[in-house]
């Protein structure tokens, strides 16, 4: 695009700035819009899982505009700062959290050619930047001058510092398979059939996917790891004292980080922007670089990637509203006694697998794992979707809920 702009008489420097500006604006818009979507989705998912409706009124049948209404309310709210708070830290903490979550998107490829900045160490960069999001949350907990927030901050610090270790080791497992930290290359390597996805590559990557996803959920402080927030015991933890736009910045950061973690998982394990049945990259199949077909292929790639990321975010919500919150000692035990040793074994295992196992066996195992996992997944989905409601319960027809006539007349 830079060369395209320079043809129209712009200096390369200016063109570079314009392209960088456009990329940044697109990313901010994406993070903000997906947060809007996720908040609505979260309410709906929570409602359905708890056998309620979720939002139904604002913006028609499904409550589409609920988040917009929330956003307007948040903008109109007074931005209060407690008298006991450290004003400087209190003000700056939401921005640090949001920047941490947002800057990670710079290196996240949405498609082979749709990345703000292709980096050689992209996955390492993303993990590094997202670790600074935590610092914003801890500062918020400390700077609020409230005991609830302080407890939230302490828990967050203890939890995140521990979970960073198995998360990083979990990332290393597919990186060893790929031989690079470049997310674009990792995505390109998984072109072709679904058995080329790294999650099916060998038993160790299959396990590493779950380890990474668990640690990723923990690092986004999502339930069952939401100890920093813990609404039922710490009021709202680190953001007890926040209101208005600063509060919503924390939420944008949280939902941004959820998508970033899901995006990393999608690229490292789930084939990135590939559909899983095409022999090559869709954009390259539809046309040469710069043609209309190439462009359409890229758009489809980006859509595929985003849908995969959304599915993982949906799984995070599903987990959140299904599992109870862990205690802090259980959180630490899960990490240090189980996740960390398992991750180390996986790291050793995948190294041995890459070095010592002959390619023929590796291929057979790969096809076998693909078939078995997809079969189990299909079985699981069929069971979930066709599950009959428990006896004595009326099958919910939720979106067309009307009050009982007897209730309306009383």
């Amino acid at each position, binding site marked *: 695009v830079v060369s395209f702009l320079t043809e129209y008489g712009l200096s390369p420097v200016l063109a570079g700035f314009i392209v960088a500006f456009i990329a940044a604006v697109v990313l901010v818009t994406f993070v903000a819009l997906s947060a809007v979507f996720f908040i609505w989705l979260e309410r709906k998912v929570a409602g359905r899982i708890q056998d309620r409706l979720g939002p139904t009124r604002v913006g028609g049948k499904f409550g589409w505009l609920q988040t917009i209404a929330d956003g307007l309310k948040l903008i109109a709210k007074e931005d209060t700062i407690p008298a006991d708070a*450290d004003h*400087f830290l209190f003000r700056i903490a939401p921005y640090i959290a949001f920047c941490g979550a947002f800057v990670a998107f710079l290196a996240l490829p949405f498609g082979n050619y749709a990345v703000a900045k292709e980096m050689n160490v992209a996955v390492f960069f993303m993990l*590094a*930047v997202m670790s600074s999001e935590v*610092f914003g949350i801890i500062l918020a907990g*400390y700077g609020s*001058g409230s005991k609830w927030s*302080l407890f939230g901050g*302490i828990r967050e610090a203890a939890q995140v510092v521990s979970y960073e270790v198995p998360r990083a080791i979990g990332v290393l497992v597919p990186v060893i398979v790929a031989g690079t930290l470049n997310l*674009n290359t990792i995505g390109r390597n998984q072109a072709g059939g679904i058995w080329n996805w790294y999650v099916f590559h060998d038993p160790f990557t299959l396990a590493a996917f779950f380890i990474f996803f668990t640690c990723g959920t923990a690092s986004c402080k999502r339930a069952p790891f939401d100890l920093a927030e813990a609404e039922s015991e710490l009021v709202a933890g680190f953001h007890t004292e926040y209101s208005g736009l600063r509060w919503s910045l924390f939420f944008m950061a949280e939902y941004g980080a959820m998508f970033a973690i899901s995006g990393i998982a999608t690229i490292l394990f789930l084939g990135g922007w590939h559909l899983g049945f095409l022999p090559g990259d869709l954009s390259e199949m539809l046309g040469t670089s710069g043609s209309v077909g190439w462009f359409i292929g890229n758009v489809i790639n980006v859509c595929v990637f985003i849908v995969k990321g959304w599915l993982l975010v949906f799984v995070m919500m599903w987990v959140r509203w299904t599992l109870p919150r862990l205690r802090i000692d259980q959180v630490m035990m899960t990490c240090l006694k189980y996740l960390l040793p398992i991750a180390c074994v996986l790291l050793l295992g995948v190294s041995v697998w890459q070095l010592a196992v002959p390619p023929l066996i590796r291929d057979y195992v790969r096809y076998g794992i693909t078939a078995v996992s997809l079969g189990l997944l299909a079985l699981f989905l069929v069971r979930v979707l066709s599950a009959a409601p428990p006896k004595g319960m009326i099958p919910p027809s939720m979106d067309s809920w009307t009050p009982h006539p007897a209730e309306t007349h009383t």
Partner: protein
Amino acid sequence: MTVTAVLFWLVAGLTGGSALMVVLSQNIVRAAAWLLFTLAGTAALYFLLAADFVGATQLIVYVGGTLVLVVFGVMLTAQGPFVTMKAGAAEWAVTTVVGILFFGVLVATASFTVWPTTPPERADAAFSSTTQQLGEAFLGATEAMPRANLTGLPAGARAEHRQQVAYLLPFEIISVHLLVVLIGAAYLARAKRRREVAA
């Protein structure tokens, strides 16, 4: 001035300014917050040099690890709501002397070194093979810095007699050391149960 130079001075100025604030602020956690900007600015300088690996390492080690632990420690140990530090006159004197000496060393190093005057090759973060080079240098397969000139050698003692240096052993020693620290920390922090005394 080129774009890179403008960005360099911008980032360097912000880094230096926030480093000054680290020293001047008396509240530990505020100092930590300013230190965040200092460290992030240093990482940004590395990114400007297309040394992405070092920049990301800087962020993950110092921001994600050290700074979090600093604030964590303050939160666990502080008696009052916000900790402030008052430095005594002796501390001021000592730190001033040490600081001036260190600054002098830096200035001397910067001014006496013969810096290469040829413009460096333009490096792109996406296509320079930094991690691969790092890995091969660890194993001693390639020189760690193939394009850099060694400084500090007497004239004539050029690189011909230099041996290939592999960093695998020190790397492994550090790794094992860190693993020992991890296990030791878990051992020390374990829940201690009294052994039941047989009656």
